């Protein structure tokens, strides 16, 4: 039975579904990378995702316009990010606690809106799969990489873009300096507050798009608490990926592929108790995290509110 795992169908299945499952993590984690690089931990991702997922779904359902759905989700995410930025930058609240607060807020509000505006689970026609001409016909590879929907492709494009912005632009330099040594950055005329506002709002937007990628691209339904802890995994992946977009990509793919592997293990009837199977991705992620942690160094000012010394 174990040998069944090595058939092409299974391997293609694992890779293709790993790519899909990783999509929301990529959006959310890359947003979180920007935030943490500038010194702000956002634990409210889950709440931003839920609100983004609902906003995108509701707009797509009522107007039939998917892009409008994404746009509204982005606006909702930006507003959430703005609020988060105000609380963490201006009020200098403890970031972990206020993040949990934003998570609960997003969960509650998305639930309330769902009950008041929809009241029942409905489906929407989401972003269709796009078959990239030529490439999608390549056996195996085509099915895995080139037969996904648009929001999946964009998520993967974000990885090099985020790397470029963080490492090759002035903005990226400012973000990193604010996260490493805000006092020095401040004395050189970089506005710590402005940079952090920018990264937190960007994080909110990307988290909301992560939610939208679920509700109108991958699943095409909305349900209460549908993200189910995914936003917290996204935070973990940032540490896992050592604050690098490529590292986050690797972590997201590893976690997702192990998850799809465990689904196949169950489907193929390999006798491992389901409780053990579903733990696999979490356990392995912790193991890799522990093994890799010696080379990891967090941004020095992470979770520290900035206060200018006069």
């Amino acid at each position: 039975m174990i040998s069944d795992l090595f058939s092409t169908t299974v391997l293609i299945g694992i890779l293709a579904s790993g790519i899909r499952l990783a999509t929301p993590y990529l959006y959310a984690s890359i947003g979180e990378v920007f935030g943490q690089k500038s010194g702000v931990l956002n634990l409210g991702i889950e709440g931003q995702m839920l609100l983004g997922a609902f906003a995108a779904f509701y707009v797509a359902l009522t107007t039939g316009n998917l892009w409008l759905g994404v746009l509204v989700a982005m606006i909702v995410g930006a507003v959430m990010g703005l609020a988060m930025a105000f609380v963490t930058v201006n009020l200098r609240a403890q970031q972990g606690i206020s993040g949990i607060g934003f998570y609960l807020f997003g969960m509650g509000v998305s639930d309330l809106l769902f009950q008041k505006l929809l009241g029942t689970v409905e489906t929407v026609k989401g972003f269709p799969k796009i078959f990239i001409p030529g490439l999608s016909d390549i056996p195996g590879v085509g099915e895995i990489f080139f037969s996904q929907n648009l929001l999946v492709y964009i998520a993967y494009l974000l990885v090099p873009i985020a790397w470029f912005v963080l490492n090759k632009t002035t903005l990226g330099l400012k973000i990193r300096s604010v996260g490493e040594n805000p006092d020095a950055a401040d004395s050189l005329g970089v506005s710590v507050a402005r940079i952090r506002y920018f990264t937190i709002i960007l994080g909110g937007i990307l988290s909301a798009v992560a939610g939208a990628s679920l509700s109108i691209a991958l699943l095409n339904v909305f349900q209460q608490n549908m993200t189910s802890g995914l936003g917290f995994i996204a935070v973990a992946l940032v540490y896992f990926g050592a604050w690098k977009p490529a590292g986050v990509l690797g972590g997201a793919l590893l976690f997702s592929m192990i998850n799809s592997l465990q689904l196949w293990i169950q489907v193929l009837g390999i006798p491992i108790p389901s409780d053990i199977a579903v733990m696999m991705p979490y356990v392995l992620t912790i193991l890799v995290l522990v093994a890799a942690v010696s080379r990891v160094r967090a941004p020095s000012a992470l979770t520290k509110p900035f206060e200018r010394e006069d």
Partner: protein
Amino acid sequence: MKKFVWFMTLVLAFALVLSACGAPATEAPVVTQAPATEAPTAAPTVPPAPAKPFRVAVVMPSAINDLAFSQSMYDALVRIQTEMGGPGKFEFVYSENMFVVDDAAAAIRDYATQGYDLVIAHGSQYGSSLQEIAPDFPKTSFAWGTTVDTFGQPNIFAYEAASQEGGYVNGVLAATLSTSKVIGVVGPIETGDAKLYVDGFKAGVKATNPDIDVRVSYIGSFSDVALASEAATTQIAAGADALTGTAQMVVGAIGKAEEANVLWFGTQSNQSSLAPSIVVASQVYHWEVVLKEMISKIQAGTLGGESFRANLANGGEVIEFNPDYALSAEAKSLAETTIKGIIDGTIKITLP
């Protein structure tokens, strides 16, 4: 750096707990459409209304319009109220979203103090709280579900659903309609109501055609729609041409079944509206059947000590066929014969 390992371990643990317990109800069933109001086939008669209204209080883990576990109870109470002649005869109040068991316990005690005739703790997670509270209020009747355990106390009723029965009928239908001879199941956590349903389903398939391969994947969560959807995709890729599943996260799976044009069998609520072209039939709960029995007992002076079960025979479970799915007359009559067989006892469902 040690701090971060600790922190991330905590975050991961938190995520795991969240994903596992995302759904507030331990047996949080499903989803879609409120069950059609339908006269239960063998419902006991409505108890005669007393001069004072009969007063019921319910504590529920999720929202009354969750289209799932809590709503099935809420709908049942509304139906009883209508049958008994409005709020003047039958009055009910509820506390919803009581996923924190401590809060629920406080609410149960409050309701008991206020002298309600029947206080329902709708969620098996409330059991141990109820066990402590009930002896303090010997004149109040309590009901607890879904379970069979009354803790041997004279003022606790227990109720549950024989979800394996509807599962069996769905299994028979699925086995009849499957041509690939591979059938997939997407389950939440291998326990309680979900396990009963899945085991009943497997028994139904095997009884109809022992050669069919039934593959079960439990995703470890009541709320992870994304993983449920990938589980369905995996089942389909592995050759399944008929799927079923239980709990609220299956909406994700139904969507994938519809995309792949694979049959779906629902449970706990009527899921036809989500994918009219592929949903064949759904098992739907009607708690009013067991509630009416309890009310009769209470009015006759028995406050508890018995357990009740909603099943096909008493109309507490109803198989609703999807009118938009062209089910062959043969298959439909086979399903109906199966239902009759379960009701009259000629079909015995053996669970592992």
